[in-house]
């Protein structure tokens, strides 16, 4: 039986620095394997949609621009994503990956969470289809990496 068994720890804390990390002032690098935001390489994709089928949260949409020439746009919903990386495992052509840097995703508006990946020309085509009569958006209006 002891009175104040944590005294040792408490005393030690007086002479050591706090365990607190000073985020956001000081930022430590996230581990290499961290499952952050998804990224997609349009060049390798064959449009098999296995990633879409296996996604547990409907976070990925693959929009076909031109099936024959394998032109697609990927619409990724960071707010639905569960960061499980099943899509990365399911993809046979290694065109998906998860970044270990894109994890500070907080935003004040939900619109920021929908990201479109694809070549600039494909993105412009998609925009023209979805927003008829608005003309081609100026470059940089809807950048591929809106979350960064």
């Amino acid at each position: 039986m002891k009175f104040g068994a944590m005294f040792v720890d408490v005393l030690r804390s007086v002479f050591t620095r706090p365990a607190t990390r000073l985020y956001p002032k000081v930022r430590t690098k996230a581990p290499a394997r961290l499952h952050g935001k998804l990224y997609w390489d349009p060049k390798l994709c064959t449009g098999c949609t296995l990633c879409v089928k296996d996604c547990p949260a409907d976070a990925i949409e693959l929009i076909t621009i031109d099936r024959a020439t394998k032109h697609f746009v990927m619409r990724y919903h960071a707010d639905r994503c569960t960061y499980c990386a099943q899509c990365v495992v399911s993809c046979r052509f290694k065109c998906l990956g998860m970044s270990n840097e894109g994890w500070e995703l907080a935003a004040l508006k939900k619109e920021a969470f929908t990201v479109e990946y694809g070549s600039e020309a494909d993105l412009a085509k998609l925009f023209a289809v979805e927003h008829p009569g608005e003309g081609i958006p100026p470059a940089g209006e809807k950048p591929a990496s809106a979350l960064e």
Partner: protein
Amino acid sequence: MTTESLLQQAESLLATMSRGSTRPETNRLDVVIESSGLVPAVSALKNARWGYLTALTGLDLGVEAGVVEALYHFCSDAAVTTLRVRLPRIGGSVPSIYQLIPAVGFYERELAEMYGVTVTGMPDDSRLFLPDDWPVGVYPLLKDFDPQSAQPVKVPPPPRGSSTGERFIIPIGPQHPALKEPGHFEFTVDGEIVTAARMRLGYVHRGIEKAVEQRNWIQSLYLLERVCGICSHTHSVAYCLGVEQLAQVEVPPRAQAIRELIAGLERIHSHLLWLGVAAHEAGFDTLFMYSWRDRETVMDLLETVSGNRVNYSANILGGVKIDITAEFAEAIRRGIDYLEERSRHYLDIVTTDTMFLQRTRGIGAMTREQAEHFGVLGPLARASGILRDVRVEAPYGAYTRFPISAVTAQAGDLEARFVVRLKELFVTCNAIRTILDNLPPGELAVKVPRRIPAGETISRVEAPRGELFYFIRSTGGDKPDRVKVRTPSLCNWTSVLHQAIGCQLADVPLLLAGMDPCFSCNDR
């Protein structure tokens, strides 16, 4: 006794009630009985002290078959005996076995509200998981359930508990600082003494068991992982084991070892988390802060190894996603050494600190008989001297190669629960070291077909809170037909609510914390 002789014993015990029995898997006996034979069959098993009731699964065989089944699963070591009661889809009825096994109360209420089966003689037939505004006569787990039919109905507001006379009701939850998760309790107090306890679940009920039927086998894995954010890995392991048994694929030994390794790290994180929360409930914030500070060590390890801090997604069907390289192994060893030293220190604190012992020693004591009577599982049972640990009783996966020894204590009070959980950390640390020293080489995963062969299987896994039970049924499609999840918390509630009566109100939060409740597990 071997599994085989246990099953033979069960078969002979049930011979008079049996309407046909099968052996679907080597460790399972499936006995079809009439609903009138249920009470004699359960008494026969109970009187012979054959295992314990582990779960009650409802099963809808579809509109064409016109049959709903109630499966009563009994486990004794690795042997599982299932009593299968066939009932008509509409108007089916089974007798309640609450008088024999009080732990069945929650399961029977679940069966009644999910399948519309009448359970005659239930002591409490109020809503368990479904919301108050759920229409009468709509049963979500039936195959022809239409979500449109479940429109909210008007309910009279619950009578506001009066504080007249001696009935003074303290509501705890669903939003309450003592509960990080929503559940609702009503403690009737006389001064500071609790005289009655009631509980309402269902605030976290999302309907995962139904949702699984609409998702393919792979999607279901991640959905089930999110049944609970604390023991997420054990849920996915239980599901993977079941699916792999159905698909009859052999998971590579390396993958099995990595699964056990992650499960070990998860157990450390869960127990340290619990230690902190329990200390916080007792008003000992410094212990909370220190145990959570040290817990960050294991969180870092998990994040480094798997990429996520909480829902690791380490498993895929047929193996694991992640490999443990030599560099990671070294980091894990270092972390484990530190954590083991700290755990010894915490064990010292919870067993010697005078003020803390005043809040734990002799409080909520549960004898071995009581624990058996209430069907308690996990550390709660082990603190009362019952060796109930699936990893020891029925080793699965890598536990056959890297066996683990169970920790038990005799006192059954809150202090014993602290001691059992902390000592489990030492055992776990040693197991992790053994695995790291003998990590088998080879593949990480084998291919599992997208369509799983038809069949039924049971997988049992030891979660940090106790035995986790999965019943999985496939009809050969690309989606599961039924996944039943029975989590340890649900089994432990009955005992804790009984213990609360006669306790001080101030002891209630600690008593609730003592069983390490997980509402998201309960409610699914």
